[in-house]
């Protein structure tokens, strides 16, 4: 374990993040974008081996104050990009889709999605991304720490400009892909 931690300490000093294999699942509530209510969401996504990225996001924030007069923000989305953001050591990402957003730092899980609005008063498709941090429900399960949506941002469609984030009442779990095994020794040997 100590060797693994040394890898972390060393790698955190580097810049740039790329998406790596792993899964995320969870959901719950967090504060609305400025409104009185709660944003409610579920998320699941996985990037594993060479299989296609897959997953879904459901999101609703009825009191987001720039949309609440028309029923708020509500959409269902398919995941088109995903991964646990890690330091770009050794293998520079040649695919721009593998590069994490600047807002998604090492240790956060990024999900890119294409959505369709489920609010008939704000219809249409769009795109967005979210960065989330597992603070203790998943692989690093610890005490009663909650998950964190570092940011969810909509960059196209009827909810363009929606940007929110906060502590999750619920959970965010990031995990290794099914069947994956740790190999601290080799990691340390290659990166020490």
């Amino acid at each position: 374990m100590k060797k693994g931690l040394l890898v972390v300490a060393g790698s955190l000093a580097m810049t740039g993040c790329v998406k790596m294999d792993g899964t995320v699942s969870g959901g719950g509530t967090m504060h609305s974008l400025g409104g009185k209510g709660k944003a409610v969401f579920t998320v699941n996504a996985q990037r594993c081996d060479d299989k296609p990225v897959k997953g879904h996001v459901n999101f609703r924030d009825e009191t987001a104050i720039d949309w609440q007069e028309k029923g708020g923000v509500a959409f269902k989305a398919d995941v088109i990009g995903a991964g646990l953001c890690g330091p770009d050591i050794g293998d520079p990402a040649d695919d721009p889709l593998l590069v994490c957003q600047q807002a998604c730092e090492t240790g956060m899980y990024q999900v890119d999605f294409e959505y369709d609005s489920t609010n008939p008063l704000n219809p249409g498709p769009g795109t967005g991304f979210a960065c989330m941090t597992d603070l203790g429900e998943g692989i690093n399960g610890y005490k009663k720490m909650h998950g964190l949506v570092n940011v969810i941002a909509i960059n196209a469609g009827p909810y363009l400009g929606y940007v929110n984030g906060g502590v999750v009442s619920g959970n965010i779990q990031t995990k290794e892909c099914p069947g994956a095994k740790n190999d601290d020794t080799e990691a340390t040997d290659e990166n020490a």
Partner: protein
Amino acid sequence: MKKQATLIAAAMSAAISLPAISADSMRLVIEYQNGQGDAVKAALAERGIDVLRDLADYDSLALNLTKEQFADLRSVAGIAEAYPDVPRKLLSTGELGEISPYGIAMTQANKLSYNGGTKVCIIDSGYDYGHPDLPAANVFGEMGLSGPWNEDDHSHGTHVAGTIAAVGNGEGVVGVNSDANMNLHIVRVFDADGGFAYASDLVGAVNDCAAAGANVISMSLGGGIQSPIEERAMDRATRDGILIIAAAGNDENAAHSYPASYDSVMSVAAIDSGNNHAYFSQRTAQVEIAGPGVNTLSTVPRGMGTGGVGQVSQAENAFEAAPAVGSATGSITALVTDCGLGTEACADAAGKICLIERGEIAFGEKVANCEAGGGVGTILYNNVPGSFGADLGGDTALVAVSLSQAEGEAMVAGMEANITIQPMADYDYKSGTSMATPHVSGIAALVWSHFPECSGTGIRLALRETAKDLGPDGYDYQFGWGLVQAKDAYDYIAANGCKSPKGKIHGGDGSAR
């Protein structure tokens, strides 16, 4: 295999990669189980873990951990809960300036006098104790981790304090309360850089304020992520009768900022001298009231003022004017000539003061066109309601200031006027919900001083009830209930007494979240 190994590294950091946490250490709040405090502290000491704050009132400790110590924390028995210690920052936007304590008249603070007794606790970057325009007799503070309370090598805290309490002594500026015997308590949580404080720092600060007998706590600071222990501290202080007031935030968006968006805290939006919503002021359903927060003039630590203080006068009109950044200082008296938008050399400017409307070209070009026409001074005025600050993008030999649209339109061409920019090293302009907040905090203390029987909640409801409605009719997310009004709040309580409803008071429009 390397990718897999890196995944493990990243997954480890998932638990510890929190906002604003450095690569080498992290800040965490832990809550220990009842009666386990001593055992937990002993266990932490054995592991060499620093306790930054002992928050015994909340069975909690604020820690600074290395990543190795974080992993080791798992073996400590008696910990009930742990969560990130989230950062809080100062909420002023910069130095550009329009002159004034214009907010004093706007908020009716000039219609009421401090009656003694109430105390404001300012949680900020310190206080320039000994400043000739700030009270000293009844000002005390806490020696914090960020430096001595009675010094301020940042300037934010002294600016906030001046808005609350600059003394009416015939020089400098006056605050909402101008009595030299005003009671203040200073808790310093920001250092000279003004970077970040943490939620746990605020918990300690609020406790210090309460212990000092504060009636009002003023926090011109905030951050985007909630903190359970911070909310508990705010709730507890409010329950105990304190009124807590905080800045809504300057991020130009609709996101909540904390502590302002906790229900137990009054969230303050910023407006300019024309009652317009400040573009930077965050719009949320927790915004409760508004105060002047654009180009507000107040005290800064002695010698830290940079821009000087401006004034324009003509006949019986005298306007506080914002010195343009890059302007010369001095005093010019001359005839005024109207140069329109000033897009070319002003034809009739020789030996005169150019009056130029904002728009189309840069401020620096407008002043250059005045000078090209032989002008000796420039007054730039707004093309929309409200005030603004002008940056010339370089230095000019002319004295140049800016006025609001209404003030500019009141200037008469062909008549003599005077422009003065006087260097004042102990004063300066700042903008932000940080500047709006002390207007409300000061007025809360001012009104409360006349009704010592009131609770914080009673004062809060009176301020809300009597705010001057701005924007759409009634409550709205930009202004809350509107601009705080001191005399109207006083009259309201005098007529109706103080309301002290039981149960939880909610922020914003008063409805539950």
